[in-house]
């Protein structure tokens, strides 16, 4: 499959990345190389095989839905670039 410039821009937008001009070219060619190689999965003998999503067979691991208080709130919020009154602060989203 050929990767177009438009596709790279579309994918970057989905991934919330802003690419500079030389990055667009570089990633377009990198992605093409990797996909050309990765295409080998389409030749693998996998007819009628189920998909595997995890490395062990466990599913639906339940636990009680209990509130546990995380005590180090200051330590957690200290990592935010901006905070106010124990909340993460972001610019206004509604005008």
């Amino acid at each position, binding site marked *: *499959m050929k*990767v177009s410039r438009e*596709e*790279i821009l*579309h*994918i*970057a937008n*989905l*991934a*919330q*990345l*802003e*690419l500079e001009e030389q*990055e667009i070219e*570089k*990633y377009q060619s*990198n*992605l093409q*190389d*990797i*996909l050309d*190689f*990765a*295409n*080998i*999965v*389409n030749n*693998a*003998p*996998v007819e009628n*095989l*189920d*998909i*595997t*999503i*995890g*490395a*062990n067979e*466990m599913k639906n*691991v339940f*636990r009680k839905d209990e509130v546990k208080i*995380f005590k*180090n709130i200051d*330590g*957690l919020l*200290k*990592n*935010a*670039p*901006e905070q106010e009154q124990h909340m*993460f602060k*972001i*610019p206004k*989203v509604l005008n």
Partner: protein
Amino acid sequence: MEITELTVHELKEKLKNKELTIEKINKAYIDRINEKEEDVQAFITKLTEQGLESAKKQEWNGELAGIPIGIKDNICTNGIKTTCASKMLENFVSPYDATVIEKINSQGMINLGKLNMDEFAMGGSTEYSYFKKTKNPWDLSRVPGGSSGGSAAAVAANMVPWALGTDTGGSIRQPASFCGVVGLKPTYGLVSRFGVVAFASSLDQVGTFTKDVEDCAILLNVIAGKDEKDTTSVDVGNKDYTKALQKDVKGLKIGVPKEFYGEGINLEVKESLEKAIEKYKEMGAEIEEFSLDIAKYALATYYIIACAEASSNLGRFDGIRYTYRSKNAKTLKEIYKKSRSEGFGAEVKRRIILGTYVLSSGYYDAYYKKAQQVRTLVMNQFNKAFEKYDVIITPTSPTVAFKIGEKSNNPMEMYLADICTVSVNIAGLPGISIPCGVDSQGLPVGMQIIGNRFEEEKILKAAYAYEQETKFREKYKPQFRE
């Protein structure tokens, strides 16, 4: 012998006989760090001052109290920077401890520092660290491997007696191989991933770097165990892995998959492995060659699945919660985009783009779904192999440590270096790398021993028997060659 050359089980012996104190041990390691760090560049955050203070207060408990350790910088340590070697987390101070760190701390071990890695554990040379390039202690012009290159180099250079790392596609085993130390990736689910910054959640696993196999079993005893905070962790009961350390491998059935010794494998690496297999035969193991034709499919599958999971996991770095925010952003959308574009390095962005692509509508079936089917194929092939064999032996890496700069501009070539290790993560198996010789340039060659799920005992036994027979550490030492 220098204190820093001793293994942990030897240190324990000397603490017991009162030949050494905890303070003396830590002082020796800190001196060694101060002496060698300029050459090796293994540390992102040194904790030597705090370490010495703790060492003065720590009393020996007959076990591991006071033993120093180094930690890969993607494992959360309360109150200490955890950067993932990324500009994005340059100033991130974890507000809690990972479960493995709680376990280390409850033993009274002393963390001497956070170790360098490829950014977010993406890479095979530690050259993709935002902060520094770690050097291979055997030859300073070469890479230590990656992504846990700082952990491997620090142990090889005797700057810490052992270290923790993480392994998503070979990130413990390959650097262990390049640096001539022992590296274990446990079975998926044996060790809690809680507090480990997620790269690819269905593949990531915490493991160990040690000087020998006995230390590996000792450290595995500490970190293994079910954790309610990691629902993928598994209860296997209380095991003492040191009981697996036996020299007798008579009758042990070893499978040798011929595809792992073919095209792309360096000739000297291959010869080294063939000698090791011959040695096993002399020791009474039963060797059989067989076909395991999955390596290429597994590598492609690995990059599809790992990048898909990474693109999702790294979505949390939004410029709002985790320290880095672009100064050029005004709107919320700009905060997301500009912070991520400035905060992530080139390799991380490359993988996010690949992962987003294979998950996007139109390509999901052709790549991601297909890769998940290949994952089943890989698991089936291994299951079949383990009906016949106790362990499987392959090279850990197709080459010895390569030169700094040799592959860093060619992503595909860097990815091919993972060809021997990724299938183990795809199938969730345990794998250990131990040194099995040196090439004509004096660089260590690693042997990978793979076991069935939760059969760490078998690979530890096979590794221990070989190590005791061949005594690599007595014959070869890193020379810090310029």
